[in-house]
């Protein structure tokens, strides 16, 4: 094409504005609740991703399932129970406090107590091997002399 024709054509352009992106979900309230629930759950396929963020097929299916349950009027707790009854406590990023998870929840505090105990024992032991021995009069005199000599 000839350059002048290009220029002519360019005269006939008009601005086109992009529309604001439509939200992906039809129902924003459902979607907000879905995200809130799904962020609390682990994707079982990619275990370091939340269910909300994962692009795994299973995560897609589970989100669809949760969305359907929200539409049916189930509470967040009911949806959570549904998931836990199928995939176990492992799906929850915040595992419940129960006998099998006591070590998980209280283990760090147990370690802290043990550490403080060990520290206290070490310090007491150190005091015992280095008893408070007062200086002899001779040493005292020497120390005072040294201190006096300080400029």
């Amino acid at each position: 094409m000839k350059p002048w024709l290009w220029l002519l054509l360019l005269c006939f352009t008009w601005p086109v504005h992009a529309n604001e992106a439509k939200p992906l979900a039809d129902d924003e309230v459902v979607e907000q609740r879905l995200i809130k629930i799904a962020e609390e759950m682990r994707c079982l396929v990619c275990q370091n991703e939340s269910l909300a963020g994962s692009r795994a097929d299973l995560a897609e299916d589970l989100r669809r399932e949760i969305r359907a349950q929200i539409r049916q009027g189930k509470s967040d707790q009911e949806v959570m129970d549904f998931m836990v009854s199928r995939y176990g406590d492992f799906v929850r990023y915040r595992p419940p406090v129960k006998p099998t998870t006591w070590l998980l929840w209280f283990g760090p505090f147990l370690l802290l107590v043990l550490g403080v105990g060990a520290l206290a024992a070490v310090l007491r032991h150190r005091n015992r091997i280095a008893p408070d021995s007062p200086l002899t009069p001779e040493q005292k005199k020497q120390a005072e002399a040294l201190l006096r000599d300080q400029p």
Partner: protein
Amino acid sequence: MKKKFNLWFVIPLLAFVGLVAFMAIGLTRDPHLVPSPLINRPAPNFLLPQLHAPGKTFSPADLKGQVWLLNVWASWCVSCREEHPVLLRFSRTHAVPMVGLDYKDQAPDAQKWLSDYGDPYTLTAVDADGRVGIDYGVYGVPETYVIDKTGVIRYKQIGPITPEALQQTILPLIAELKK
């Protein structure tokens, strides 16, 4: 002068050995094996069309009173190929019925797969949208459930059934459940 051996200096070493032991045990465990909460719970019920006879349906209730296996598979599943010879060998023993659950698959692909490689299943139920898979807590095919006479799930194999798993775990369990 011989110094007294101080026990306190050994403690960091012991702590380190303990830490290494924990980590070494951790390395032998597969983090992808998530224990199923469905063990010793009734197998979730469903009603699905059969792959070879779409007019007919299958429900776990049909096999009440029998020990059976539910094997979740798909034609797109790579590890299912690995497991397949084990399943074929198992099916030839006619020990117990084995139902295939064709998970999120296309019927023609699944049918071709079974005719190409052999069909070890008593029958195959079609879970096209994976909804039944969710009820069974399926998160990675293949998965296999051993279900007892009362319809309770007694064991779940996550990932392909290895010859060892079959010999050492599944077959003894089946023998015990059949009593």
